[in-house]
């Protein structure tokens, strides 16, 4: 994940140099793709910042260094904000449990 963060940093630095050849105002999919690329990099940054802090495995978030789910420490939403210096800041929000209490997800057992 550290390596991924470095790669992502490199991509973020390259992003402002992206050029667009399509100058039409109608159905400009090249422009849309460029705008989406910027958003995708921001989302990737959020996922990495949050994933590094989540020292457990849960659902689609699987870590070989922390294979178990840890409700004591991580039964929480992560909210990612961007600080003034551009760095992601991760906050916790407690989960409101409603009808279905969370349980371990098991397949074929």
């Amino acid at each position, binding site marked *: 994940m550290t390596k991924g963060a470095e790669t992502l940093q490199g991509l973020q630095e390259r992003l402002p140099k992206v050029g667009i*050849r399509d100058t039409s*105002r*109608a159905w400009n999919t090249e422009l849309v793709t460029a705008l989406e690329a910027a958003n995708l990099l921001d989302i990737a940054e959020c996922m990495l910042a949050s994933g590094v802090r989540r020292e457990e495995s849960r659902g689609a978030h699987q870590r070989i260094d922390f294979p178990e789910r840890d409700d004591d420490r991580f039964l929480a939403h992560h909210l990612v904000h961007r600080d003034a210096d551009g760095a992601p800041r991760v906050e916790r929000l407690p989960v409101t449990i409603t009808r279905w209490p969370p349980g371990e997800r098991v397949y074929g057992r």
Partner: protein
Amino acid sequence: MSESITLRVTRYRPDKDREPAYQDYDVPLREEWTVLDALNYLKNEIDTTLTFRWSCRMGICGSCGMNVNGDPCLSCATFLTDFAPGPVRVEPLANFPVMRDLVVDISDFMAKLPRMKPWIVRDEELSVDEGEYLQTPEELEAYRQFSMCINCMLCYAACPVYGLDPQFVGPAAIALAERYDLDSRDQGEPQRLDVLIEHEGVWGCTFVGECTRACPKDVDPAGAIQRYKLKAAQETAKAFLLPRGIRR
């Protein structure tokens, strides 16, 4: 030196071009490539300004309909090698206004669709507490094939009647009306018939059958329209013969 094939692609930018024109591109002729693969190669490697719709690449989303060598088809389900040695003409779907390059405006269909009430219509809705509307496998089978429509618009591009008379409701919308009429849970047939019995409803169709030939999901819109004509004719006969109170 690997083989290549020429794509002759319609280009049109409404804010820059007076009218559509062809532009030729040479792309690799690869056995496993569909026309959509070739277009994506073209956009990524040769000309980023080409615009076309696509999404799933597997014949489910219905976004990538185009006229390839004059025939409406899903470009994701049409192999490039079928057109070797080329050139291959790639054009927007016929019978629709072109918004840009290969993208057409389907608002006409979108406006017609809700007139068919393509949802389950009940005289009286069951409450949530009363549970689901149950259906046997046989009842499902009765309409299943008509439910396969992915709204790809190939049948509209293939339909010569729609090309001449844009008022015609058109194949997919009528097939969808039939899909709900045949659904055992539905009671909306009289309401749909009121719309389709009009001149621009099923009677517009002259049974050319091109819609069924073009359909990538074997929905058979032409068959649906013929069934509907029978229903409409029966209804008209009843209207002559029976007093209003006991019709239907």
